[in-house]
């Protein structure tokens, strides 16, 4: 390999140009005509809130999804990125946040996976190892080529991913949150490597939420919001506060129901909650009738905090109290018995048994109450569920409908129904409206308000800042496993202020 384009050989055409990229998924318009250009030897930062369309854009680049509309040119030639293979042939490599390494294979085996050097049908492992060694030398790192990848550190795996990208004639390298799991030193070494690659004329798209890094490494920045371009700046000509403003600059419309707030006694109290690096010394209180929003960037430890409260993961330390009483919570069963409910972020993987009927899903945490000496009282079950179907306006053809076949909004309502029927005192909503259409969103908000009005304590985890501002009575912000901000006076607060707490 290593016949990398010398810097700016094709001075006229940019290395990569995406024009009018459109992509929608069922119920969501992810991209509404995004433009992006990348020059050889440039590091372009891509910035935006969760859900702004960054991931979708790089999925199009990596050939994971076909675009609905738009054109992509590489070196001025139009390319059709209909598959990962086509993307690779066009010289594009994407390093995802979750690595795509086969854990049991060594670095060099991973690098040549699907692209093995063979001689007369036999793998030429020696040749592969030699080339792998060359590449790591070029990256300036030591790498044990005999260890399987799952024995390597996260930083080393990252390097394997980079080396894997360089095996091909890569001209465009996309890195999605490459430093999320790296230490400061490892990050600095990565930057040295990025600078080397830049000198070799490779164009790099760098996605990160860490502004310090963006200002340090990138040449230019593009801000996306709601699937469209907001702005584009040379990094030297823009300030951090301006970028944050542009990321969140959505105006608040009347998408949240109003309510009268009457806040009571402290109900849920969490103290010194910790688990590894994910959650460190988190403590807060939620009072009766109060909706507390817990926000922060993806990976800041919000969901992990909720799981610790709910007993889904084992906590290293910490205490959980409800109404001043200390709770023994070692598993979700105990949490539920104590009156805590968790609506998980990922409905499909954690919230629902997709192959089971919606009614069975509804009944799951409520079976003890719906049963008589172990026998499910089917008529009671049916009638109770029918009541919730009416109340929550769940649209299903019949109660035996499999959960798999419902829309996101209806799935979320089924999950809601099952926890409402449990009559929990504390409800934790993790991203309650993700993937939910606007109408259903409003209904879910109304329901949260009703619950609060009944004196329940509600903790709402959300990345959607307008939602946080529209719904919460108090806002907690997390960053890298710690609680970094608490905002009690919501009359003055802006999305920019929240974002300041959330980013390093």
């Amino acid at each position, binding site marked *: 390999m290593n016949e990398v384009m010398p810097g700016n050989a094709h001075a006229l055409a940019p290395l990569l140009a995406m024009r009018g990229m459109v992509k929608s998924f069922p119920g969501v318009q992810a991209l509404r005509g995004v433009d992006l250009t990348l020059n050889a030897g440039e590091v372009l930062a891509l910035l935006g809130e969760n859900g702004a369309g960054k991931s979708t854009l790089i999925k199009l680049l990596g050939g994971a999804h076909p675009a609905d509309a738009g054109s992509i040119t590489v070196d001025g030639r139009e390319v059709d990125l209909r598959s990962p293979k086509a993307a690779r042939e066009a010289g594009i490599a994407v390093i995802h946040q979750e690595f795509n390494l086969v854990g049991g294979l060594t670095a060099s085996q991973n690098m040549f996976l699907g692209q093995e050097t063979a001689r007369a049908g036999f793998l030429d492992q020696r040749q592969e190892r030699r080339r792998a060694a060359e590449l790591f030398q070029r990256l300036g790192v030591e790498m044990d080529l005999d260890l399987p990848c799952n024995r390597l550190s996260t930083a080393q795996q990252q390097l394997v991913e980079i080396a894997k990208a360089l095996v091909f004639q890569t001209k465009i390298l996309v890195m999605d949150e490459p430093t999320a799991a790296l230490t400061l030193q490892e990050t600095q070494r990565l930057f040295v490597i990025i600078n080397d690659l830049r000198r070799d004329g490779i164009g790099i798209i760098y996605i990160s939420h860490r502004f310090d890094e963006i200002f340090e490494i990138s040449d230019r920045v593009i801000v996306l919001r709601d699937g469209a371009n907001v702005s584009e700046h040379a990094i030297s000509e823009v300030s951090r506060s301006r970028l944050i403003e542009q990321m969140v600059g959505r105006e608040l419309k009347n998408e949240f129901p109003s309510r009268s707030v009457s806040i009571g006694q402290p109900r849920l109290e969490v103290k010194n909650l910790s688990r590894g690096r994910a959650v460190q010394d988190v403590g807060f209180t939620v009072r009766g009738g109060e909706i507390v929003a817990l926000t922060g960037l993806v990976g800041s430890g919000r969901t992990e905090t909720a799981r610790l409260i*709910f007993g*889904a993961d084992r906590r290293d330390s910490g205490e959980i109290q409800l109404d001043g009483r200390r709770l023994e919570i070692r*598993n*979700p*069963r105990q*949490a*539920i*018995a104590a009156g805590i409910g*968790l609506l*998980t972020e990922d409905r499909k*993987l*954690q*919230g*629902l*048994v*997709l*192959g*089971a009927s919606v009614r*069975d899903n509804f*009944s*799951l*945490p409520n*079976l*003890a109450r719906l*049963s008589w000496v*172990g*026998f*499910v009282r*089917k008529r009671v079950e049916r009638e109770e569920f029918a009541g919730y179907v009416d109340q929550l306006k769940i649209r299903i053809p019949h109660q035996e409908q499999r959960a798999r076949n419902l829309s996101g909004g209806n799935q979320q309502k089924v999950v809601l129904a*099952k926890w409402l029927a449990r009559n929990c005192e504390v409800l934790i909503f993790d991203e309650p409206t993700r993937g939910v259409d606007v109408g259903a969103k409003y209904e879910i908000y109304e329901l949260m308000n009703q619950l609060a009005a009944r004196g329940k304590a509600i903790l709402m985890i959300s990345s959607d800042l307008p939602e946080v501002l529209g719904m919460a009575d108090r806002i907690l912000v997390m960053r890298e496993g710690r609680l970094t901000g608490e905002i009690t006076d919501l009359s003055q607060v802006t999305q920019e202020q929240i974002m300041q707490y959330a980013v390093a």
Partner: protein
Amino acid sequence: MSGLLSKHGMILVLLALCAFFSAVTYREQSPTGAAAGRDLASAISKEFQGTPQVLIVARDLPEDAAFAAELEKAIRAAGGQVVATVKGEPRDAREAILKLVAVGTKIDFVAGTQTTSEWLVFENLAADFPTLGDPKVITPRSYFWPNFLKADNLLNIANQIAVIAIVAIGMTMVIITGGIDLSVGSLIALSAVLATRFIRDAGGAENASPMGMTLACLAATAVCGLIGSFSSLMITRFAVPPFIVTLAMMLVCSGLAFTLSSGQSIYQLPESFVWLGRGADLGLPNAVVLMLVLYAIADVLMSRTQLGRYLYAVGGNREAARLAGVPVERILMFAYIACAVLAALGGVIMASQLRSGSPTYGNMYELYVIAAVVVGGASLSGGEGHMFGTLTGAFTIAVIQNGMNLTNIESYTQKVVLGLVILAAVLFEKMRHR
């Protein structure tokens, strides 16, 4: 009904197989037994006015005895006279005739079954023994009916599949939780050996009391239940994959069964030990009755109880079930223990059927059991399956084996066909659901 069919499409396959085997075993049937006796008596009284003199000829077989007894009773009741009843060989018939000739008795009818009436003695009766008069050889009317569909054969099918079907109940639960249990075949052997050894060594061998035998069988079942709980502990607490745990236990249990029996069959058992396996107190074989009762219980358990719901939920999405407060570990333990206990029960039934305990019992049964469950529509990835489907699956396998036996297909070929049919049945299900 249509709902039942769409849920259990295998019923269609089973019915099709039954129809097929009925067609290829459609044969002329010569009736015997009590019903045939009554039938023949009324034919005689229709044909002969007055007092017919009848010689009854039957073989020395239980069904012929019933035939002869009923026939004799019916002829007497209709005012006829039975001059003699032969039960035995053609030689016995000749002797009886010679006796009648000696005393000068005339006879009007020789009444026999299809088989006895074809004996050479009766070919030229009037010419050979003129003093008898002109006796007419008469048999019950024959009819056409598939061998496959004869009541005896159907009961035979049910009896032969009882062990596999009972073990498949437990396997269905395990597979619904998304697991697998490969140890059931070995547990059958271990349980059979343990039960028979307990009877031989502690229960009084041939003189064991019913109570002693019951306790021995319960003890064997309890040991297997303990083994099941050990497996389930490995699977839940130590997170070893079920395939590996039960593969290991399959070897352990088989080895134990051979060790405990020194590789020999244990047959020092009382005659009454066969009650469970061969008896038929309610018209149906006891093992079949037990199987049907267990299926009824299991079906209620799976479809109507909290426990059943939890089994499905754990298999459908373990994490979602856990986060909904389902005690996942306890549910899994229940499934594996139930499976081991039912396998043990299968071993006891098998020992009873064969009146001995041998470490070779249940060899390869785990595969037939899994096949029954899968053919019955359960998904190996968990969360789906029904007891009724499994019963259908077990019967499908039994019907194929029985049908091939009836049509004289040799056993090696049978395996090939069975394997292909299992594959085809599962494919058929997949296509239907697409």
